[in-house]
């Protein structure tokens, strides 16, 4: 009989083959094949494509500013908060980007809810004003949406990293040396945190570089960000556009490489600056100190702010899905009815089923693969470098999926639920791995040894001791993988040939028609599934820990 504990390494190998090697191989093969036919003239045409320079600049600025601002915001916020906040993060993590963007624009645009309410109160805005907190489409709007959406993920990663560090001892040490609490945070803890945030930050940067659906909805478009332009070329079917799309993807990959390099420099740079500060005894100029303190105050109100925003987004989606005729400057719809809900329910039901089964199955596969890889690393007696595990996260999604689509067509593979499922696993796996890895690698293996010395097999010990002890990261890893699967648009639409309909593909398709009522309905559902999963996990963990303490 094969011992169950011997299955870890084969499972890890299969996972790596199926979730890392195969996807990259397919994409590289497709790109190699296509790139070999590109001529110098085509390269010249591409480099002179209208707006390419500006699009590249937009992309770079977005991919640098959004993650960095989100990172420092999250760091500032976590300077004063406890890990209990993690429980509160879950609903924020679960808001899909698209739904969030729709809601944000509806709240803050010149014709948005806030202006409408102001008009209702003061009568000052019979027509939407020229100014607004957020224009309907602009780089700033895009930046703000991405920052707000990325802070919760980074916070989760910061809290996970904090639990691996003796934060209190750092703080006491700092204070005994005469540093204030916030100074010891920024000068002692943050450099260590930044080191551990390198990979999550890389993931966020690559996401910001390659995201398409949000810029399409709220970004600038003369030109848009590079990913958006590449997507447009990819959709166009003229030969020139196809080549542009291909070269654009390559440019995206190069930018991604550059960003990863910059990201690696981030922590050393921060550290270098700190050393300068220590060596020269620099004191922050008063203005900067004031600004910093102001920023800290803003950062501290992040959670309530996010909550109000999240509620506002949820509420606006809900009201819109029930609205019968709602035009500027009315602050409430002319009437409310459940017509859309009643009418769409029979059609949304199978979508919920598809979305749920895909998400549950791919989250389970992602989790098993992540666990197998982590356990196999332990068995091998060394920690593998993390970046190969996270390749699907560190490569921009658009070129990757385009490469797969090309390969599938080339090998005459029928669009199939199986491929969509596989793609979901590929993208869910690195998130599950990222959330789990820290706690897993720090797990005290002596517990397993004790279990074995009591007469239990290694597999039994792993199952009855390690898994329950790591249930928090395991469940969070699963649920993050679940949300990642729910939010997949490109792989579902392209590999499923449009036949695999999930709440997300439906929401994006509906958004192309601009019917805000219908869009809100689908965005709301897209919101609800991960929210329910996350709340279930959070409540379960809270109950478990209460039982534990009782």
């Amino acid at each position, binding site marked *: 009989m094969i011992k169950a504990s011997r299955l870890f390494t084969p499972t890890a190998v299969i996972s790596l083959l199926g979730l890392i090697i195969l996807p990259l191989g397919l994409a590289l093969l497709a790109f190699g094949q296509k790139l070999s036919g590109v001529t110098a003239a085509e390269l010249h045409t591409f480099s002179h494509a209208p707006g390419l320079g500006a699009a590249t600049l937009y992309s770079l600025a977005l991919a640098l500013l959004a993650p960095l601002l989100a990172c420092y915001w999250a760091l500032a916020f976590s300077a004063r908060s406890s890990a209990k906040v993690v429980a509160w993060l879950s609903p924020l993590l679960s808001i899909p980007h698209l739904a969030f963007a729709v809601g944000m624009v509806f709240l803050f645009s010149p014709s948005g809810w806030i202006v409408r309410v102001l008009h209702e109160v003061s009568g000052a805005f019979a027509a939407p004003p020229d100014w607004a907190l957020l224009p309907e489409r602009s780089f700033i709007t895009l930046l703000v949406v991405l920052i707000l959406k990325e802070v919760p993920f980074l916070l989760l990663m910061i809290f996970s990293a904090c639990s691996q560090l003796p934060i209190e001892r750092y703080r006491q040490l700092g204070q005994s040396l005469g540093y204030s609490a916030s100074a010891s945070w920024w000068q002692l803890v943050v450099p260590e945190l930044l080191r551990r945030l390198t990979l999550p930050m890389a993931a966020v940067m690559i996401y910001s570089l390659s995201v398409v659906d949000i810029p399409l909805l709220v970004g600038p478009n003369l030109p848009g960000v590079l990913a958006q332009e590449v997507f447009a070329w990819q959709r166009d079917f003229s030969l020139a556009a196809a080549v542009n799309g291909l070269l654009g993807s390559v440019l995206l990959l190069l930018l991604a490489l550059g960003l990863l390099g910059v990201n690696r420099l981030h922590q050393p740079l921060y550290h270098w600056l700190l050393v300068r500060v220590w060596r020269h005894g620099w004191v922050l100029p008063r203005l900067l100190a004031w600004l910093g303190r102001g920023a800290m105050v803003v950062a501290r109100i992040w959670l309530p702010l996010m909550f109000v925003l999240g509620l506002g987004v949820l509420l606006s989606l809900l009201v819109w899905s029930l609205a019968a005729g709602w035009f500027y400057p009315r602050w409430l719809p002319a009437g409310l009815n459940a017509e859309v809900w009643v009418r769409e329910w029979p059609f949304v039901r199978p979508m919920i089923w598809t979305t749920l089964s895909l998400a549950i199955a791919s989250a389970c596969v992602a989790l098993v693969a992540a666990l197998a890889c982590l356990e196999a690393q332990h068995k091998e*007696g060394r920690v593998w470098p993390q970046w190969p595990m996270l390749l699907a996260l560190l490569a921009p999604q658009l070129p990757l999926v385009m490469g797969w689509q090309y390969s599938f067509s080339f090998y005459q593979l029928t669009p199939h639920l199986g491929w969509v499922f596989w793609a979901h696993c590929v993208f869910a796996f690195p998130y599950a791995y990222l959330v789990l890895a820290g706690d897993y690698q720090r797990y*005290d293996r*002596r*517990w397993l*040894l*004790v*279990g*074995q*010395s*009591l*007469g*239990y*097999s*290694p597999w039994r010990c792993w199952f*009855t*001791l390690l898994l*329950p*002890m790591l*249930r928090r990261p395991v469940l969070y890893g699963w649920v993050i993988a679940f949300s990642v699967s729910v939010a997949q648009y490109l792989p579902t639409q392209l590999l499923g040939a449009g036949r695999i309909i999930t709440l997300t593909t439906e929401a994006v398709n509906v958004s192309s028609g601009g019917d805000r009522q219908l869009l809100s309905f689908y965005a709301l559902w897209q919101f609800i599934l991960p929210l329910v999963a996350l709340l279930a996990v959070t409540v379960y963990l809270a109950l478990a820990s209460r039982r*534990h*303490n009782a």
Partner: protein
Amino acid sequence: MLKLQQVKIARAGQTLLQVPELTVAPGKVGMIMGPSGSGKSTLLLWLLGQAPATFDIAGQLSLNDQDITQQEVSARRIGMLFQSSLLFPHMSVEQNLLFALPRRAPYQSCAARLARVETLLAAVALADKRKAMPDTLSGGEQARVALLRALINEPKALLLDEPFAALDQHRREEVRQWTFEQIAQWQIPALMVSHDLQDRPALAQQRGPLLSIGNAATHLVQE
């Protein structure tokens, strides 16, 4: 009877530790002393059946005249106590003990198992902590439950890796005595690693051999 023969631990071609022969009788506590890095903890892990892959270890281990060198951890039936109690944090005191209690006669019925645990806990004055979670116990209580968990499993031998180092001074003495009493009572051969000679049993009938590892050589004192 725990017996080590011709054990040699090396790393990267360099010999760290050599034990020509060492025998611990049931109820007695053998002791290995030495500075950190001398390979004594590695020796314990090897005895347990899970030697780190980075060491080269040769030798023979027998338990009650049976060679168990090639057996897996779970088959050896050797218990282990670490410096920290390593009680399973997701299980109550009672569950920790039930987990360790062998599933064989006479402990097959639920009632019999619960009764066994309760009796043992009462015997060490921890009956009221039956439902408590490990992280709510004091250091001394944790140490007692950890030893009880090892003993209730009815091991054929017990290994102790600096089991008292984490305890404060006055509790250490108390737990130490109690531990040695239990080992004597259960008639199990035990082998302890420590760098504190104080940890050696005070009573001669509890004392096993003392192996002290120096930088140059290994001395064996048979009691």
